[in-house]
């Protein structure tokens, strides 16, 4: 029962990501696409250091390492 709840919850979250991306890609949508959201975050800099870019690259690399190497 609890296992089904966890699977259902994660599937719902993934489905919500897909629905949000679909809504964002509609003509005239005020919701940005996930790519635009990431690009906006990556613009963040502290002085000459691209903190947003380093942070997002680091997070994505860690995610790959966690699932594909650990």
């Amino acid at each position, binding site marked *: 029962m609890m296992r089904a709840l966890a699977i259902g919850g994660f599937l719902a979250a993934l489905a919500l990501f897909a629905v949000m991306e679909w809504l*964002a890609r509609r003509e005239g949508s005020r919701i940005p696409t996930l790519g635009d959201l990431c*690009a906006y975050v990556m613009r963040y800099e502290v002085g000459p250091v691209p903190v947003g870019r380093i942070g997002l690259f680091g997070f994505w690399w860690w995610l790959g390492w966690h699932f594909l190497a650990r």
Partner: protein
Amino acid sequence: MEQPNELTVEAPRAWDRPTVSIPVLACLSLVGGRFASFSTEANLYILGTGGLLIWLGLSNRVPRRPAPTRLGSGTVWWSLPIVVFGIFEGVTFVVAAGDDFPTFSRLADPLLEDHLLRSVAWFAWLAAFWELVRR
């Protein structure tokens, strides 16, 4: 006749075209899919591919698409899937009930033992990383 600079468009480099980048990423994914979890090869391979992409992304060697200067008012809606995922990941992690109430990675592990699915996961990870580098 010479064209004014503002009217010229830089042609995409050969390796920046999908006809080149997709087969390259697919080959890298097939190799990555052969390495089992916790192996030295898998760790070295993800360090190498990820390190290369981070280096490309932080240098100015890859042309980037212009980033939006402002986001629409609907940005807050993205918090919905993030919060739902975060709640389930957080609760399953804290409860630590193993397979009875598994975390997302515990659910994914048996799927990723299959070489084909592992290669598909590698391709998704590399393709998304490549998109981030070009942003």
